């Protein structure tokens, strides 16, 4: 690992934390629904940093949450999060960012960057994270998987919108920042 990748991982983790602390965004292309941008940051980590560095950035966020920093959306943090109903969604960020990075790299280069990024964010940032999130909710609450899935559906529209937003942001990000498609420096 180079110093460069270490610092990039740390600063991207700081971006994910900062996005959770910002006031909610109004989404122009979804009727002005307010969303927190934190899970958008997780999707961006996988797409922009690549699977390994992206997952490392997310792991760092999870670790610092465990140390007690209230950096999750809404100022949550501490060990309580790890035994709460949303633990699966938090833990799922890790494979989520990794898979988003893998999918983004695997998609053919001739696809527009924004489309690839949105698809990758959907697979990693929605499908994978929900799989873990629903399993975690079922385990903590004692609900069946189907019931847990039902309870999680409320958040699905917002997260699909965030996958699209990942595409928009990635397309607007200057190419040198997107290390993931170039030869990775890890």
């Amino acid at each position: 690992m180079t110093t460069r990748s270490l610092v990039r991982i740390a600063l991207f983790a700081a971006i994910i934390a900062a996005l959770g602390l910002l006031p909610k965004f109004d989404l122009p292309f979804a009727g002005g629904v307010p969303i927190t941008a934190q899970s958008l940051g997780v999707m961006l980590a996988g797409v922009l940093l690549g699977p390994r560095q992206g997952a490392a950035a997310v792991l760092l966020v999870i670790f610092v949450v465990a140390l007690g920093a209230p950096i999750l959306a809404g100022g949550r943090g501490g060990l309580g999060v790890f035994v709460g109903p949303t633990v699966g969604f938090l833990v799922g960020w890790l494979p989520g960012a990794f898979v988003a990075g893998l999918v983004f790299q695997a998609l053919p280069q001739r696809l527009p960057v924004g489309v690839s990024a949105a698809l990758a964010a959907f697979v990693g940032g929605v499908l994978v994270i929900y799989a873990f999130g629903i399993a975690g909710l079922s385990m903590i609450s004692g609900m069946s998987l189907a019931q847990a899935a039902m309870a999680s559906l409320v958040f699905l529209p917002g997260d699909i919108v965030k996958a699209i937003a990942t595409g928009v942001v990635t397309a607007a990000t200057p190419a040198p920042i997107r290390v993931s498609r170039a030869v990775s420096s890890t």
Partner: protein
Amino acid sequence: MISSYVSRATWLHRVPAGPKLIAIAVLSLAVLPLTDWRWLALGLGALLLLYASLGRDMFGRLALLKPLFPFLIVIALIQAWMESWTGAAASVLRILLMVAAANLVTLTTTMQDLMSAVAPAFGPLAHLGINPRAPALAVALLLRFIPVLLETWSRREDAWRARTGRRVSLRLLAPFVGDAMRMADQIAEALEARGFDPSISSARQQEGPHDHP
């Protein structure tokens, strides 16, 4: 340093981080399979007494459980509707018990102590060619740069409002991330110029003032 830690000298503050972490893990594993709401209510009652024994200040920190309430209501409704009221009560009590107990560790242990308690686990990183002190440096950088990033964000936001008169847009996000990554590369150069080596083992690493939070 931002943390939920409460700076007080209670008896629980004096218990070392390691035993507290083990206790919380054991408690969670023991409580998870419980389905009788009466045992769980008893446990929660005991935990509330424990909070109360640590002073009014700590008891007030039970407010940290508030963000859970919307989830608990949904969980309770689904379970009460599809199974039984007793099942719903057990779920809600179990979650409150586990989260309140885990919060207690966070409230009474500094980040530094928790970090030192888990630091030995980073030893094996050396075998992967990663400096075992890299995680501590990464944590320090993360915490240091949250306020910096929030500051640059609010400047961007002001400029955006002044130019457009509209509310903030996700359009600000791409240049924000781009700038942060450029900043990262400059910091990396500065660290290396000061002798930080990310790959050598801690035994050969010279003491540096900047690789510890």
